[in-house]
């Protein structure tokens, strides 16, 4: 296998981006172009979802509603949640960065089913167009769509259900493609234990996507059936059970948080060794912990429903299992920190975001036990404590991991380097803004402030004002980061094939890669973490 600094391919500068015209994008079979289209789409929805968040924080500056009606506020938090979850955070790393880099990482020319890949993108587009269509009668159910409210709501719930069904199909097709790609298309010599950890993470993610998503598909199908055909699975008047909706919904929606976090953790496992110049510590532990998280993650959905009237025994079982998902997660954190030991650490933007991930995800993760323990869950459920917990894990975790991946792989995807100084400025604003926005929510949540409240009682006023100020700083940081990306695209310095002196196979391809990725499929003779040996 080629060592550092000896790329297998040097491109003509444009690589996979050479061919122009909308048809070359709309009908492309190139996983890199499909990944890029997903990235543009998901980042767009991240920004739109973020705008809704800022509107919420604006309204929450005052205890009584001032700028918007209660109904408008309720629509905003529904759209914020639904867009962020279904149109951004689930697809962004897997379908965006995953599509781009999985074939490169395993030394293949493309995914197993390139046409299915293109189909998955267009199904995604169809899904979000339908969802946008549902805005004629916007949802105010919350992103969780609990029945009976969602079944009775005058909003376009049926349309939205169809849109989400399509988004789910896109997710399943992507996961299916990745599973087959990872099993069947690895380069010669790449055994399972020579795969990059990003691939292990994506493999576990794809398994979850494939198994969990159909269930939420049926959940929404039955909701649509209740509205259209009058079936009564969730309707107490017909003998149905509104809590059945919650069971079906969370059977998917809990594992899906691992779809969100595992790819980000994969990115962290890639970045830390490169910027510490040391092999990853505990490769097998990290690899298998991804599978353990995926497996245990399917068994704990009831912890979203401890106050829904489930029997104490059921609650106890779910609580017990919930705690065990923390163990493989903690294992990863310990191994990443151990990787830093006696390293040679530099703090370029990918590493800043990776270290930030570990820090903020630790906060999010360590606030989990409060919610997993039954007695404290009863107090904290449906309060801002939960909102803080999942923003620390999803934004402090996944989004920071996503930013790390974008900064790390920007040179490879675009052939240009980012301005490091601006990147670090943006990082600082994001870090400060994020913590100010969300840490206060732990406090008001502990004091009893319920979530999804357009109006709140005055004793929560101060923390809400502080949180809103934080959100403004966070927004500025994100805008600076986006501006930096656009500037990089237009006038970034040309990037070498391997600017970070990294060992995984994508750095053996040109920056940006040629359409066929590698002139010759590489033969792999060792794992991609041989830093710290005389060779590096």
């Amino acid at each position: 296998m080629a060592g550092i600094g000896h790329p297998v391919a040097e491109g003509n500068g444009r690589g996979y981006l050479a061919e122009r015209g909308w048809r070359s994008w709309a009908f492309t079979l190139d996983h890199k172009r499909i990944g890029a289209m997903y990235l543009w789409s998901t980042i767009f929805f991240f920004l739109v979802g973020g705008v809704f968040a800022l509107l919420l924080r604006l309204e929450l500056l005052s205890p009584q509603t001032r700028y918007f009606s209660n109904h408008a506020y309720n629509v905003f938090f529904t759209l914020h949640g639904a867009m962020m979850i279904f149109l951004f955070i689930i697809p962004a790393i897997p379908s965006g960065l995953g599509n781009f880099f999985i074939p490169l990482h395993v030394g293949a020319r493309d995914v197993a089913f390139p046409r299915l890949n293109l189909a998955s993108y267009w199904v995604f587009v169809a899904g979000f167009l339908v969802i946008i269509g549902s805005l004629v009668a916007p949802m105010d159910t919350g992103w969780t769509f609990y029945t009976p409210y969602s079944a009775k709501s005058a909003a376009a719930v049926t349309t939205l259900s169809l849109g989400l069904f399509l988004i789910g199909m896109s997710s399943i097709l992507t996961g299916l493609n990745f599973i087959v790609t990872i099993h069947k298309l690895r380069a010669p010599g790449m055994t399972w234990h020579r795969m990059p950890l990003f691939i292990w993470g994506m493999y576990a993610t794809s398994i979850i996507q494939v198994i969990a998503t159909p269930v939420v598909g049926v959940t929404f199908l039955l909701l649509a059936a209740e509205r259209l055909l009058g079936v009564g699975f969730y309707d107490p008047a017909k003998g149905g059970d509104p809590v059945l909706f919650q069971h079906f919904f969370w059977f998917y929606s809990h594992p899906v948080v691992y779809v969100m976090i595992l790819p980000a953790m994969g990115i962290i496992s890639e970045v830390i060794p490169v910027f510490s110049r040391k092999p990853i510590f505990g490769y097998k532990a990290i690899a298998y912990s991804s599978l353990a998280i995926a497996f245990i993650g399917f068994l704990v959905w009831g912890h979203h429903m401890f106050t829904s009237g489930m029997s104490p025994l059921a609650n106890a079982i779910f609580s017990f299992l919930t705690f065990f998902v923390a163990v493989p997660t903690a294992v990863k954190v310990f191994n990443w920190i151990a990787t830093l030991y006696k390293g040679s650490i530099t703090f370029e933007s990918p590493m800043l975001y990776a270290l930030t991930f570990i820090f903020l995800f630790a906060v999010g993760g360590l606030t989990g036990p409060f919610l997993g323990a039954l007695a404290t869950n009863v107090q904290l459920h449906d309060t801002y404590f939960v909102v803080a917990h999942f923003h620390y894990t999803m934004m402090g975790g996944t989004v920071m991991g996503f930013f790390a991946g974008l900064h790390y792989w920007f040179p490879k995807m675009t052939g240009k380097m980012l301005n490091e100084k601006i990147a670090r400025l943006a990082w600082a604003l994001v870090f400060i803004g994020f913590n100010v926005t969300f840490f206060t929510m732990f406090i008001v949540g502990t004091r009893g402030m319920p979530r999804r409240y357009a109006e709140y009682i005055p004793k929560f006023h101060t923390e809400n004002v502080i949180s809103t100020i934080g959100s403004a700083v966070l927004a500025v940081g994100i805008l600076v980061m986006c501006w930096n990306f656009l500037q990089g695209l237009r006038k970034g310095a040309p990037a070498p094939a391997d600017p970070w002196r990294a060992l995984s196979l994508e750095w053996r391809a040109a920056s940006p890669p040629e359409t066929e990725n590698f002139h010759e499929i590489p033969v792999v003779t060792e794992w991609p973490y041989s830093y710290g040996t005389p060779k590096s």
Partner: protein
Amino acid sequence: MSGTSTEHHDPAVAFESAKLGLWTFLATEVLLFGALFTAYTVFRMKYPELFRVEHAKLDRVLGAVNTVVLITSSFTVVLGVDAIKRGKTRLLEVCYGATILLAAVFLCVKYVEYAAKFHHGLYPRTNLFFSLYFVMTGLHGIHVLLGMGLLSYVIVLSRRGRLSASYYTPAEMSGLYWHFVDLVWIYLFPLLYLLG
């Protein structure tokens, strides 16, 4: 179309990939129907009397006929796949044609059943048993229809000379899908029609 065709140069890898892909897809279908079977179990345990009374209103004869029809159609599919493995495209087309025909019979019988139910005022909204009956058999029926489309596509491919003894992946994959559709019915039939 832009982008190089990234079809794998090694047909064995391509075939293995297609098989793994299809089995993974079938896993998703198991979960899809599994959620409905879970709903069935939940409500059956909650309302045993309702299920006992209502299930008797289903036509067991028609249900049995459909079961035989579908099992036969799986048999014709097997014959078809076997045919193309021996390079016999014409026989494949005949067998798959027969499968599509049997599928159409299945759907016609379902139409007759549904019409009869509506005639007697039994709709999806009538009670939980019929909600389950219509939703589960309806979703299954959609899968039968999609299967008919797939099988037709395979026939088209064969007519265009694209299938042979060395390349029959579409035939085998659609055959596997068809067996799954059959299998779901094998579970649906006793659960809905027979269990008292």
